[in-house]
């Protein structure tokens, strides 16, 4: 059996028919929703722990340190201990805060980033909701997150939080433009906004190889814009601990703080998964022309492994950025977007459209 070609739809279909045989139609839908919801929540929790551990280790290795290495094997227990600590801590609401908004904001941020997981293709046929505007859905849902950040900053009744939230808003709104243009350039090439279609269009080669230099430029710009959208260093003006304590989540503690933290890492995963799907072929295995033997060996690696490998590769690059570059000033940040990234990605989109019409790509 060739693993990466194995289609998970048969598995999900079997589950569906098994449920249909035992209960009424409405209950089948409800059960399926509950099961997928539980799966997403478990996935999110495990993923955040893995990412936090990864981040700390990568940071330590790049700064010639050791990183967590005391609790458990190679310090893996440290993350569990930290999460337990955050869960047990008291969530304090400041006296001057707008109570309802203050308590609502973390749920808004976390639920938007969990919604963005829906159209991502984790493997062949392993999609929660393969809707035909998948890419558009992800971009629109991830921009909703900024509302939660603005609510958090405003309701905290703290000038640092307010400043952080405003900065975050300005940053996300401006960098979404160039990220969107880079996404559109791949939509132009693959001719579809559906995630599974985009992955299938890369069966004979990933877009980053097929699309020549314009797609490589689009990839680089997308990674930069994604880093800025995630509010991560070198674009972490929204948190900027040396200037604003912790930015929009200064007043948060305990589980509510953990939810912001969780949302940050899930957002990182979503955008990296999107980049992997658009540019690196999603779950498509790596093939070279007509090296049949090599291609067959690659086919034996299961498709979810390909997907997670590519996604974690991009996550590593973004972490690499964070621990290498210093933070930008606000004017530099807006300079970079409006003077460099946006014009370049516009011209680049034009070039890609031309390339697609003339059929210059492979």
């Amino acid at each position, binding site marked *: 059996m060739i693993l990466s070609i194995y289609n998970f739809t048969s598995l999900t279909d079997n589950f569906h028919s098994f449920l249909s045989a035992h209960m009424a139609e409405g209950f089948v839908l409800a059960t399926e929703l509950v099961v997928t919801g539980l799966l997403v929540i478990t996935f999110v929790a495990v993923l955040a722990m893995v990412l936090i551990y990864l981040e700390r280790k990568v940071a330590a290795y*790049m700064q010639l340190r050791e990183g967590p290495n005391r609790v458990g094997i190679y310090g893996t227990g440290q993350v569990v201990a930290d999460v337990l600590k955050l869960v047990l801590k008291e969530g304090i609401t400041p006296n001057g805060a707008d109570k309802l908004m203050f308590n609502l904001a973390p749920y808004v941020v976390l639920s938007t980033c969990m919604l963005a997981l829906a159209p991502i293709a984790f493997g062949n046929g392993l999609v929660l909701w393969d809707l035909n505007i998948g890419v558009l859905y992800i971009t629109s849902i991830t921009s909703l997150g900024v509302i939660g950040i603005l609510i958090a900053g405003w309701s905290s009744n703290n000038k640092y939080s307010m400043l952080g939230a405003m900065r975050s808003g300005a940053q996300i709104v401006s960098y979404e433009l160039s990220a969107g243009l880079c996404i559109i350039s791949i939509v132009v090439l693959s001719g579809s906004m559906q995630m599974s279609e985009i992955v299938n269009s890369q069966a004979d080669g990933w877009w980053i190889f097929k699309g020549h230099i314009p797609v490589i430029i689009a990839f680089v710009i997308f990674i930069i814009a994604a880093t800025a959208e995630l509010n991560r260093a070198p674009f972490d003006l929204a948190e900027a601990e040396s200037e604003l304590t912790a930015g929009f989540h200064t007043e948060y503690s305990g589980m509510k703080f953990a939810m912001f933290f969780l949302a940050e890492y899930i957002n990182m995963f979503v955008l990296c998964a999107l980049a992997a799907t658009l540019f690196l072929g999603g779950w498509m295995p790596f093939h070279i022309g007509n090296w049949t033997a090599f291609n067959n060996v690659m086919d034996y690696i299961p498709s979810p492994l390909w997907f997670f490998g590519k996604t974690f590769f991009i996550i590593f690059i973004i972490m*690499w950025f964070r621990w*290498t570059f210093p933070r930008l000033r606000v004017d530099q940040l807006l300079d970079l977007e409006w003077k460099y990234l946006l014009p370049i990605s516009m011209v680049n989109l034009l070039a890609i459209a031309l390339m697609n019409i003339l059929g210059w790509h492979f």
Partner: protein
Amino acid sequence: MTLGNYFGNIYKGLKSLATGMRLTGKYFVRRGDSLTQNYPNNRETLKLADRFRGEVVMPHNESNEHRCTGCTACELACPNGSIKILTKFVVNEEGKKKKAIDTFVYHLDTCTMCNLCIVACPTDAIIMANNFEHSVFDRTKLLKVLNKPESKIMTGVE
């Protein structure tokens, strides 16, 4: 801004970013350079800098002799009174009465490792040792006498 300037800026920016990423990438791959030591696990092979200041000690040679003349320069130099020297008079071979140290009291609990006593010592009788594991349950154990019992001043040290 000319067009050449614009693309020149992009090129320069990307180049400097690549330089930075190459450095951190090198650190990431080459783990042998790690500056952190797994301290409690590597007590035998622990590497400390030569000038690391752990505590003040007074070296003695094989015949139990030290170089301290009891001039109290270190006591005067100490900013917080961590050193107290008690002197006595001893009769030397020539029948002359001479000042010598009786007890060199050193308060490790108040010492800030400022190194001023070592600088002040005219005969290099005291040095800073590397040992830093000073934790005790009783603070009186940190009150140390640096000269060993029955020790004498080295001949020739004035």
